[in-house]
């Protein structure tokens, strides 16, 4: 049975001590409102930023960092202030209840083509008021048309070519053209110090710096954004008092006074209570999402960061567990009020209305001792009972994780909650250390966006810098640098694949194509990095990344303690399966020649049923078959190797990641038939998961396959979907079985996995009747999304991915 998919029924077992933690009336109402509120495009930020920059053009000498600080300050000071009924934590990301902004100075222009159809499109419709659309068309876009980031990054013709290419990316999608974002802010420092202390520090440093220097300008910008954040909180205090003055209910009046009191203290001062901590983080979270791209600003290890405040409040009797639970729930609902506004094109790559605000629970402290605490448990209960779109919850597990915590997580997952995704510290931490991160910082890692691990609060790793289409390089290798059916050569002019006498020889051709495409990618991305440094510095982000404030260097200038960029190889499994099939069918069994295989791919297997069946029946990745798994491993190594040794504009390395967001679908749609037997246009597998339905030996064999991969090269993370049919976890033993499956997989060396216990029939029903299951949260690819928010193709893929019972 599938449990209720919204939080309507708290469904713990009766003996469960956590049963004290119920979803309060308030929480349920807030969640329902946000779940059902229309998603709206908000033009407020775009208009304010544009207004600021138009005016700033009168002062041409002003450094960009100063302008960026002032622009954010202008937004924060002029933004609409709204407190909704019943709220305990306040502050809105946009001017609407649920919405998202546009970033005209970055990639916002790419959304222009959808402005007229946001409302009517079938996937992720977004309401746009006529007034806001007009403002965007008249005030905003004309100004930025000649000033947006990519245009400033490259010479004009190249920028035009690049922009057009990125509208329909084939080789890769460079996300960094939309700013960097993607980091874990140092919220620990924010709560310990407050913005006032940061401001004072910046002031003191600026006082001794050369007046016209970049560093002085940077510190000045930090001071400016701190003051604006304080003003932002003050505006909320004022609003709360106004509302209290006219509030008839004495209870709500008291609450509004509490809100005012909290807003008076934070974020300016150190947080003295649990609630102040959450409110301070929320204000900063809002401001950060307004500063750079509103994506993947990840709050990180909130169970650790809030722990001292929580413990203290409990001891003094200011707080009890039920109240803490409610506050955490309010926080989760708040994060869910933000949705990304993407055009249809971008949605194909980043589907599911997802912003990647990761909250991590569990794991170790900096010394490696277990740090799971009662807040970790509260969060796990929350994931189960209040299935919000955001945050993206992750749980860290290590050898010393308490058995109760493991059991609790397994129980929640076995009940059908899509969260949390699970991380194996024993693999992740050494990977980070291998990347040059100090062991203590590595042990304090948190994840960004989908799955990317970083040293929390100290890193600026642009983890989602680009997504790369690996199988396209395979297609080009088979066809001398041309896509099947295309005349124009877009890849390297490699010798005919038909002449290869072994799969090793063919691999050399693949490598040549890969190198050429990666070289081009790196050239373009470096131009974007330099443009980000010049035109899109982010003083508030920098203040919350250790290293920048001391050095007086913005994070986009390389001021962070740890720098880097993450580039995702999409479709490694597809390429590996193709090589495995060629090895088996062509070179081992000699059932067909390589020329026949290539010709069949070119024809998209039309009339080649038997050959296609042979290719599909060849050994595949995901069955603990060392030969097939070995090819996937080679592809991963090759990709990581190709990136290695290059340095980005911020002085960090390019790290390979193997997660795919929804790009495995978008890229798959562009690639011709391949030797794995996959036909033209079909999606690849998500991340490092095996191809749909091809893991025929069950989950243990699949996990062993994954564990056999060189996950050490997946420094920027990888995602694996473990889809289990409900029968495997049914009955009283279900949770224990899942726990064993995870523990066994992690012991074998799996780095990360997300479990989706989904009943295929339910998905089919949800597909056929949109709206019938609005709260059905599913795991897409490193994150969760409501099923209704997925594109038809993604829905279909998810249904196919849900494997049939074993042994059939």
């Amino acid at each position: 049975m599938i449990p209720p998919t919204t939080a309507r029924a708290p469904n713990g077992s009766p003996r469960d001590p956590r049963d004290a933690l119920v979803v309060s009336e308030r929480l349920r109402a807030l969640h329902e409102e946000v779940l059902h509120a229309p998603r709206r495009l908000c033009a407020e930020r775009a208009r304010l930023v544009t207004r600021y920059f138009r005016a700033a053009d009168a002062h041409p000498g002003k450094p960009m960092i100063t302008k960026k600080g002032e622009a954010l300050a202008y937004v924060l000071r002029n933004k609409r202030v709204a407190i909704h009924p019943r709220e305990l934590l306040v502050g809105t990301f946009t001017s609407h209840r649920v919405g998202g902004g546009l970033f005209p100075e970055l990639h916002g222009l790419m959304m222009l083509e959808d402005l007229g159809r946001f409302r009517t499109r079938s996937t992720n419709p977004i309401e746009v008021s006529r007034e806001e659309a007009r403002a965007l068309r008249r005030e905003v876009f004309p100004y930025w048309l000649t000033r947006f980031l990519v245009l400033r990054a490259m010479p004009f013709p190249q920028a035009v070519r690049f922009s057009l290419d990125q509208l329909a990316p084939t080789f890769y999608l460079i996300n960094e053209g939309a700013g960097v974002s993607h980091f874990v802010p140092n919220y620990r420092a924010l709560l310990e110090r407050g913005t006032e202390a940061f401001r004072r520090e910046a002031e003191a440093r600026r006082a001794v710096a050369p007046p016209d220097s970049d560093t002085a300008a940077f510190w000045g910008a930090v001071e400016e954004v701190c003051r604006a954040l304080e003003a932002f909180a003050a505006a909320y205090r004022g609003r709360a008092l106004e509302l209290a003055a006219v509030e008839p209910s004495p209870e709500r009046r008291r609450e509004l006074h509490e809100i005012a009191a909290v807003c008076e203290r934070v974020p300016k001062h150190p947080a003295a209570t649990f609630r102040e901590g959450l409110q301070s983080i929320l204000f900063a979270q809002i401001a950060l999402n307004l500063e750079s791209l509103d994506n993947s600003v990840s709050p990180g290890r909130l169970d650790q960061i809030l722990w001292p405040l929580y413990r203290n409040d409990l001891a003094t009797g200011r707080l009890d567990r039920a109240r803490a639970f409610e506050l955490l729930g309010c926080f989760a609902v708040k994060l869910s009020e933000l949705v990304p506004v993407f055009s249809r094109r971008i949605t194909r790559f980043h589907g599911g209305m997802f912003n990647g605000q990761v909250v991590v629970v569990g794991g170790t402290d900096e010394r490696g001792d277990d740090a799971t605490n009662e807040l970790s448990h509260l969060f796990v209960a929350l994931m189960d009972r209040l299935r919000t779109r955001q945050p993206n919850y992750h749980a860290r597990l290590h050898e010393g994780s308490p058995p109760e915590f493991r059991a609790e997580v397994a129980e929640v997952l076995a009940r059908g909650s899509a969260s949390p995704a699970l991380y194996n510290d024993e693999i992740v931490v050494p990977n980070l250390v291998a990347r040059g991160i100090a062991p203590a910082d590595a042990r304090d890692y948190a994840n960004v966006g989908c799955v990317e691990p970083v040293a929390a609060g100290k890193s600026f790793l642009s983890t989602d810098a680009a997504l790369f289409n690996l199988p396209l390089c395979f297609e080009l290798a088979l066809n001398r640098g041309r896509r099947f059916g295309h005349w124009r050569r877009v890849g390297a002019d490699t010798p005919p694949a038909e002449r290869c006498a072994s799969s090793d020889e063919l691999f050399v051709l693949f490598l040549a194509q890969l190198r050429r495409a990666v070289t081009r990618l790196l050239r373009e991305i470096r131009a974007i990095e330099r443009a980000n440094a010049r035109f899109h510095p982010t003083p508030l982000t920098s203040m919350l990344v250790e290293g920048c404030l001391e050095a007086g260097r913005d994070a986009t200038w390389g001021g962070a303690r740890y720098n880097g960029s993450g580039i995702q190889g999409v479709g490694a499994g597809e390429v590996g399966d193709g090589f495995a099939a060629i090895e088996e069918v062509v070179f081992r069994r000699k059932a067909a020649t390589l020329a026949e295989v290539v010709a069949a791919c070119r024809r998209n297997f039309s009339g080649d049923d038997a050959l296609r069946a042979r290719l599909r029946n060849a050994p595949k990745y995901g069955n603990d078959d060392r030969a097939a798994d070995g090819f996937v491993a080679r592809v991963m190594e090759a990709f990581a190797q190709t990136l290695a040794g290059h340095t980005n504009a911020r002085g960090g390395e390019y790290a390979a990641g193997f997660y795919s967001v929804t790009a495995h679908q978008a890229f798959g749609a562009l690639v011709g038939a391949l030797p794995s037997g996959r036909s033209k246009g079909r999606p690849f597998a998500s991340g490092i998961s095996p191809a749909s339905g091809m893991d025929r030996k069950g989950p243990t064999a699949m996990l062993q396959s994954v564990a056999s991969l060189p996950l050490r090269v997946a420094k920027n993370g990888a995602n694996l979907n473990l889809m289990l049919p409900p029968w495997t976890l049914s009955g009283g033993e279900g949770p224990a079985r899942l726990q064993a499956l995870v523990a066994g997989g992690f012991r074998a060396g799996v780095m990360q996995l997300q479990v989706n216990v989904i009943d295929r029939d339910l998905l089919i029903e949800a597909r056929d009747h949109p709206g019938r299951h609005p709260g059905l949260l599913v795991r897409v690819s490193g994150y969760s999304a409501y099923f209704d928010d997925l594109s038809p193709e993604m829905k279909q893929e998810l249904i196919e991915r849900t494997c049939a019972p074993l042994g059939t």
Partner: protein
Amino acid sequence: MRPPDSATIFDVQRFSLHDGPGIRTTVFFKGCPLRCAWCQNPESLGPHPEMAFFADRCRDTRACAAACPRDAVSARGDRIRRDRCDACGACEPACPHRALERVGREVPLDALLAEILRDRSFYESSGGGVTLSGGEPTFQMSAMGALAQRCRSEGVPVLLQTCGAFRFDAFAPHLRSFDRIFFDLKLMDPERHRRFTRADNPVILENARLLTASGAPVTFRMPIVPGITDDLDNLSAAAAFLREIGASSLHLLRYHRMGEAKLARLGYPLAPLAMGAGDVGRAVARAAALLAECGIEVAV
């Protein structure tokens, strides 16, 4: 005698959840001395490899006919002419659609052990292990013993599923390799036992007695096949027998009809038993109540 270095196996199933505790790998041995009318694994019966034909996968390419050296492939129906086929397997790789499968292969014990050990981390995390099943593992007594012993010395818990039809003196040396033995009783009346399984039961019952007396960790099980094993006489006789040999519990197995599709694949003459799922459920509940009355602890 040197222990054998291979066994005839018809399947190895990983992530097996219903053959003992935890996550297990189940090794299915080929060959069985019994011919139960309700057999769920007909491909396990014969001691030698045989060809299975999956009619639903076949796309009529005739590649198999071209590959067969004995002209044993017919154009229609079952496709394989059992009287000519010697299960050489030449047609299996020839078929692009995997419609022909050689059931049963000689697997070196080294390879078998290696495959079993692949999931060691899951046995450890779940309290699982390996289950030797079949067919009848004791039908290949020394290979079974050698495999069990090697798993055991690798620290993998071993569970045996047996029909009990073996020579006790041949079995006794392997006794200590098993963490648990699932021992299946079927029919207590010798005549009916012979009729429905084509084998005698005195040796089975004697083995049950000897195993219990030896203190081996035995769990007795009985398949509930409506109309065959679930009558009052059989159940009360089973209860009496168990009490007599000093065993107190019986694990009831639900009969599944899964085997019937397989029968066709292999061209077996065993007649399908016509019954609905509801019948089985009711029969199991009734049997459980009855046995409980006779003082037997029942698990389902």
